[in-house]
């Protein structure tokens, strides 16, 4: 019982924190000063200076406003990346769990290659082939994130395939495609909901990383990774330029991971209380979103 309360508190507080971050990202920019307004006289003010709670950057822009409007950019991009990668990942996971050996083999190899190949290198090649922009960034995130989702989905599909209801459906004459979509598909929903926050957190880190390398969101649009890139040069004079956006990223990701963990514990707990304590396919979720 005490464990149950503890599990729920994790879910509760991390959801609360995610909700607060989202609200700040949505409504904050309307209240905070303009993140692009330069004020050279007041450049590089440390945190808690007058009028600038988080200080200012080398161009005198208010860090707090930049964090808040950067949150908007980062969150939207990550959300789109998460949705895209989960969609592609689910489809590929379903396909690779199919009975047809050739299709399954092909998509398995594709997942392996994708997991094997470091996405940063891929991102560098793709960005040099196109140019850095937000649509390309989202594409890169989908490309980098789908395989880990596909792997989880595949493992669930494979564990569902031998079950009686699938056999029954195929005896009745349902096609493989129908079985995958109509019968196995719904069983994936809890898992998808559990991966989603973890995937979102991985996407935030990825957005920050790519922007930090100059491959993602381009200045002057503020984003958390971009702020870190700009702050890198001033590391010795102005620690807050890099520390504050990093803390924003870490808090957001930690909250999202908390939601994911909380959900997965809750789902597992519910299931084990109901009937089937031996099934632990959720354990494969752990670390799935680590990219």
């Amino acid at each position, binding site marked *: 019982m005490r464990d149950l309360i503890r599990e729920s508190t994790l879910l509760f507080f991390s959801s609360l924190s995610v909700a607060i971050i989202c609200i700040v990202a949505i409504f904050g920019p309307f209240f905070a000063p303009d993140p692009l307004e330069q004020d050279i006289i007041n450049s590089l003010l440390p945190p808690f200076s007058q009028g600038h709670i988080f200080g200012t950057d080398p161009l005198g822009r208010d860090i707090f406003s930049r964090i808040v409007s950067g949150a908007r950019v980062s969150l939207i991009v990550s959300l789109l990346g998460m949705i895209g990668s989960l969609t592609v990942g689910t489809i590929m996971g379903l396909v690779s769990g199919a009975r047809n050996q050739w299709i399954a083999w092909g998509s398995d*190899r594709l997942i*392996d*290659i994708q*997991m*094997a*190949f*470091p*996405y*940063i*290198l891929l991102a*560098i*090649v*793709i*960005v*040099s*082939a*196109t140019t850095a922009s937000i649509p390309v960034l989202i594409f890169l995130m989908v490309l980098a994130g789908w395989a880990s989702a596909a792997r989880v989905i595949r493992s669930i599909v494979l564990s569902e395939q031998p079950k009686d209801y699938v056999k029954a459906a195929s005896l009745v004459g349902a096609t493989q495609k129908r079985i995958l979509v109509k019968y196995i598909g719904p069983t994936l929903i809890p898992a998808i909901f559990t991966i989603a926050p973890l995937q979102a*957190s991985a996407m935030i*880190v990825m957005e*920050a*990383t790519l922007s*930090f*390398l100059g491959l993602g969101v381009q200045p002057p649009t503020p984003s958390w*990774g971009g702020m*870190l890139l700009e*702050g*890198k040069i001033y*590391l*010795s004079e102005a*620690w807050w330029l*890099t*520390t504050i*956006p*990093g803390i924003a*990223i*870490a*808090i*957001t*990701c*930690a909250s*999202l*991971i908390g939601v994911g963990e909380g959900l997965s514990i809750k789902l597992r707990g519910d299931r084990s209380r109901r009937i089937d304590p031996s099934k632990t396919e959720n*354990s494969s979720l*752990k*670390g799935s979103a*680590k*990219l």
Partner: protein
Amino acid sequence: MRYFFSRVAQSLVIISGITVSVFFMLRFTAGDPARIRGNIYATNEVLEEYRRQFGTDRTVAEQFYSFIKGVIRGNLGDSFRYQQPVTELVLPALRNTMLLGFMALLISITFAIILGTMSARNPNGLVARASGVIAVFGQSAPLFWVGLLLINIFALKLGWLPSGGLTDWKNLVLPSMTLALSILPSQMRVLAASVKAEMDEDYVRTAHAFGLSSKKVYFIHVLRNACLPLLTVIGNDMGVLLGGSIVAEVVFNFPGIGTLALVGLNARDYPLLQGVTIVAASTFVLINLIVDLLYTVMNPRVRLGISK
């Protein structure tokens, strides 16, 4: 043996697939390297001269033919920017990157075994809690930010360690610590879980019954079996490790593959980018192959082809 050959064949297919796709992706979509090489006032004649020098005035098919002919002989062409063979640039960089990755792996495995063991044996202890915090931090803080923090603390504030470059073993400390932190959480988790699972097995009870000390049981029997899943995780982490080392290299100005790739990106240096990608991908596939084979050697169930 058959498994071995099919794995090798698979690896070759993957490497050639990546090679060919990188070549065409760059040729069809990237900007003109001559234009980036020449200054903005460069006349058409100058640009033509550069194109002739780079060989980009030929048709794509011709370029591909000479590229493949070179690759088979182990020649990846000359870098546009540095005017020297790509292999001479890539191989030392690869050595540095692998050194960095290896150090990081060593650090993270050491810590994973120590912390994972301690937290599996005493799940409510201080170490278990602390490693939980480390795991969450490692998973949610971006690697490059951790790197910047470490530079700020250990290089700028305390002045104990250099902030970048590679001249001395000291240069390796901060980047490999940063990298290790990013792969530590998954390893620690898996190890703690598998240690816990192994502890409940019958053979542990038997060993205890034979009168072995619990230390002996743990280090000789349990840990060996518990490390099998860890090996899989390490195999999966290779991508994270290589990708992460690219980022860490940029943060720490470390002369590795990643820094080279970014230079290649900015100069639209096709041969360099191709070289980096091919070499990195091959190394990577090779390491995965080795991990896979190691796994079969260590796990008799896989070796003998017994499923379940």
